[in-house]
């Protein structure tokens, strides 16, 4: 096994998380700055419908994106792939939805695109250290618990379970469920954050 085979699974998870987070955040932010969010709030749409619609609409594209990145990594870059490609697609998709819901949530706290970029060192960069590229046990003790609240910890772990260790559903279901939990949590918080713009 080469170094690339070891780093590859992490990179897949990281790139998907990074790009989806940024694009989803910026585009939800633009709904606010261009006034379309307010326009939508003048319609009878419910806040949860807006959040769910955003996740669903973007979700379709993240499926395609996940499929392309995973297929490229496995078939073109020829990264070691011990398990099933479908599990990898599933995990990356869950990771993408988590990034999507987190990005749209955090965009509520940014005033413009530049401030959205400022979330990268706060949200994305720390996750690199917990995604499995570095051994968590070698970190300072007080840092280690942080890994539990980082979505990429679970995504990276699950992808390596499948790609390197050839794991199946039994090995990854808990991580997939935790990612789903993160997504639900972020979406719920976003529905609450939209209250700032319309009480109902």
């Amino acid at each position, binding site marked *: 096994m080469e170094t690339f085979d070891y780093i590859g699974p992490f990179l897949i998870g990281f790139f998907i998380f990074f790009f989806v987070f940024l694009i989803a955040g910026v585009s939800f932010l633009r709904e606010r700055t261009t006034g*379309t969010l*307010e*326009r939508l709030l003048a319609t009878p749409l419910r806040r949860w419908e807006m959040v769910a619609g955003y996740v669903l609409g973007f979700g379709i594209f993240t499926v395609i994106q996940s499929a392309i990145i995973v297929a490229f990594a496995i078939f073109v870059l020829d990264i070691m792939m011990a398990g099933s490609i479908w599990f990898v697609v599933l995990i990356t998709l869950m990771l993408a939805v988590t990034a999507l819901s987190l990005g749209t949530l955090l965009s509520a706290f940014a005033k413009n695109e530049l401030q959205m970029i400022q979330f990268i060192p706060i949200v994305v960069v720390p996750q690199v250290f917990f995604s499995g590229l570095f051994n968590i046990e070698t970190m300072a003790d007080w840092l280690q618990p942080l890994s539990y609240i980082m979505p990429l910890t679970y995504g990276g772990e699950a992808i390596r379970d499948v790609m390197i260790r050839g794991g199946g559903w039994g090995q990854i279901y808990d991580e997939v469920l935790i990612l789903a939990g993160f997504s639900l949590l972020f979406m719920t918080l976003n529905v609450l954050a939209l209250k700032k713009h*319309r009480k109902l």
Partner: protein
Amino acid sequence: MNTVIQVSDVSKNFGSHIVLEKISLQVNRAAIYGLLGPSGAGKTTLVKMIAGIETPTKGSIKVLDTLMPNLHNMTKIGFMAQSDALYGELSGKENLEFFASIYGLKGEKQKERIEHAASLVNLTEFLKKQVHQYSGGMKRRLSLAAAILHEPQILILDEPTVGIDPVLRQSIWNELYKLSENGTTILVTTHVMDEAEKCSQLGMLRDGRLIASGSPRQLKESTSSETIEEAFLYYGGVRHEN
């Protein structure tokens, strides 16, 4: 005379900043009610509260005898915001289809309403164009079309004619008259005094207070002024002397 919009003793603060103070007004069915006032007077905040986007700090707003904000009532309101809230990457038609489907308009009905609304604002031949290629006036007109797609009983327009040339402004007003003849109640904000003359009822807003209301003629007669502008100055001045 049936009241469609009833604003009772409404105040609104953002933090410690008082935007509106004890506003009471009512709008009757099929009226064209103009909210006149300089920018910063609180017009936008007031119409947003009536549209159900903002909630009053004190007081109550009833639209069609229902307390706002109310999601079901929002299907009966058409709202055109001050900024052109449109998706620039989409064509005019796609924008209208999007807003139409939010209100549950589908298939033939949707197509028919889009055609109707687009022809009202003279945009039929530009519908296939992407909105970011539209001029400022075209965007305003598309916003108006989007607001009337679902045949709302109440139409709330925030500065609808800013940046629109006089010919088109006239044609938009003609449309508003037509809509009001068909029973639509229209609430419009403006800071252009000569536009205020076109409304059937006027409310003058200044520094968050309603300084006068009535028909344009009443306001002019009771202050013995020639123009709405003079009447506005009169009411604004009286408040200062106190």
